[in-house]
């Protein structure tokens, strides 16, 4: 770090434009970000892009290898794999994004309250958070699915619960750090009310790392959704989901491996893209230390 701080130094170091446009600056960022934009567009416009009806069965043409007209082949019921992968993006992205949105909202509220008010409340919250922190996300999700039963709703909540601790910890760390800053002290001395300080000063300054980690968590959420779907505890047929597709493909592992390979490739590439783009965002926002410190 140079001795110059603030906007001028950042401008000279090439920090121009919005963080997102900076993240798109490198070629890695362009590829990863471009892929994610494409994926979201595909999910949104799925009904217009899919070459076939994702649920249409054609039993005479089951387990067809990739080729024409079924670009990625068909599964045991003769359903078009490409169409199902495209619709699977809808399920996967919406479930994961909803779950992480819930998780961020709850985690930020808990973390901000714990960090701001401190005392017994903070200790109580952090004890529970540290407790869930040591548990693998899949185990937390499975406990939750055991309680409300299989399905997409419970998958959503299971993912939300699994990552709640992460956001609570992160937000609390940000608030605790910000509370020591001079401008907060000044605001307090000017007589600002707690809700004003929290909402107008603390949270806006704490939100960047939470958003970026949230984005990374959407990637983890996609894997978790696929895993639960693979176990048959997530999306129930005929809803197309990447995990459920792979699970039905295991029965025909030898006959039609493409039913497993393609959804898996999409999951893997998506998660890698999320991670790469998230990394670029962290660099663009210059918040690596703030994320590590929590």
């Amino acid at each position: 770090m140079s001795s110059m701080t603030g906007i001028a130094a950042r401008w000279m170091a090439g920090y121009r434009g919005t963080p997102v446009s900076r993240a798109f600056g490198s070629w890695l960022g362009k590829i990863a970000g471009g892929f994610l934009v494409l994926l979201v567009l595909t999910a949104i416009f799925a009904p217009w892009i899919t070459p076939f009806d994702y649920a249409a069965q054609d039993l005479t043409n089951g387990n067809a290898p990739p080729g024409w007209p079924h670009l990625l082949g068909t599964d045991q019921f003769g359903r078009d794999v490409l169409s199902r992968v495209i619709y699977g993006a809808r399920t996967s992205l919406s479930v994961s994004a909803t779950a992480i949105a819930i998780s961020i909202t709850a985690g930020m509220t808990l973390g901000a309250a714990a960090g701001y008010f401190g005392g017994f409340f903070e200790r109580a919250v952090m004890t529970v958070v540290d407790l869930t922190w040591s548990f693998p996300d899949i185990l937390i999700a499975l406990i939750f699915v055991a309680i409300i039963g299989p399905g997409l709703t419970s998958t959503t909540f299971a993912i939300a619960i699994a990552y709640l601790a992460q956001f609570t910890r992160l937000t609390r760390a940000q608030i605790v750090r910000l509370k020591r800053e001079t401008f907060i002290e000044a605001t307090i001395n000017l007589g600002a009310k707690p809700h004003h300080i929290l909402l107008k000063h603390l949270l806006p300054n704490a939100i960047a790392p939470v958003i970026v980690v949230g984005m990374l968590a959407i990637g983890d959420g996609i894997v978790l959704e696929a895993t639960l779907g693979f176990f048959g505890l997530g999306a129930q047929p005929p809803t197309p989901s990447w995990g459920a597709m792979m699970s039905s493909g295991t029965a025909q592992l030898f006959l039609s491996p493409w039913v497993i390979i393609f959804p898996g490739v999409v999951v893997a590439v998506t998660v890698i893209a999320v991670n790469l783009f998230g990394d670029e965002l962290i660099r663009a926002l210059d918040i690596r230390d703030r994320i590590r410190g929590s």
Partner: protein
Amino acid sequence: MLWRYIFFRVLMLIPVSFSISVVIFMIVHLLPGDPIDNLIRVGSSPDDRAALITKYGLDQPLAIQYLRWIGAMFQGDFGEAIVLRRPVADLIAQNLPYSLALGGLAFAFSSIVGIILGTISATTRSKIVEQFMRGFILLGSTVPGFWLALLMILFFAVQLQWFPVSGAGGWSALVLPVLTIGFGGVALVARVTRVALLDVKREDFVMLLHAKGLPSYKILFGHLMPHALLPVVTILALRIGWILGGAVTVEFVFGRPGLGSLLIRALGQRDYPVVQGCLLMLALAVMLGTLIGDVAQAAMDPRIREAKT
């Protein structure tokens, strides 16, 4: 001092295990419907039903039910599996050794290979090795475990036929599952080792060691490693839980017996006594893992003992 730390750390397990066991106990009560309907076989006679109600004490207050449940657990009575029609304790005893073998081997594999790879990448100046490690770490921490398992089966078991596709017959059946779980673990351990080694390398005392002419390998093994291994031990300890999580998935894909596949199957069949038993065992294993990790850390670093007692 270390004993004092261990004492308090073990004491901490009591509230933690209490809260977890309450959550797991509550599963059958939070489910929709009467708890008895979640615990009884379809088509049981009213007499069986009454017997089960008395056995689990379902006509008593929740607190008493919990105490009876946890008391029975301590005596090794995990209840009766609904679908499999056997005591849950037997099922767990039968499956546990498979999980322990898989988890233990995967853990050893990720620690050893991870530390070696991390050390190589921290000491090399080769750009190619550097890039390779970055890619490897990215893949290892992002590729979903169950898909990797399927790919392994497709490639090594179906195409090359080097290893059995599934099951638990002998050592060769362990290779692919261990590699699958280990892949993520190796990537993580390698990254932490690398970062830790590079951090220590910058310290002044290392420059002094170089200046006084100590051979690099002596500096690496005698001076750098002991410092760098502390964060590695921390992450490995946390990883015990995650390896168990990975084992759940991988056991299921490879069709291996084990706590994970038992749990997933029981969840699908709504066999709640088995679900409760498995979850309790897995939670216990995670807690013991973090306990061992914390103690190992405290034994290595006096500052941690001081701070936490």
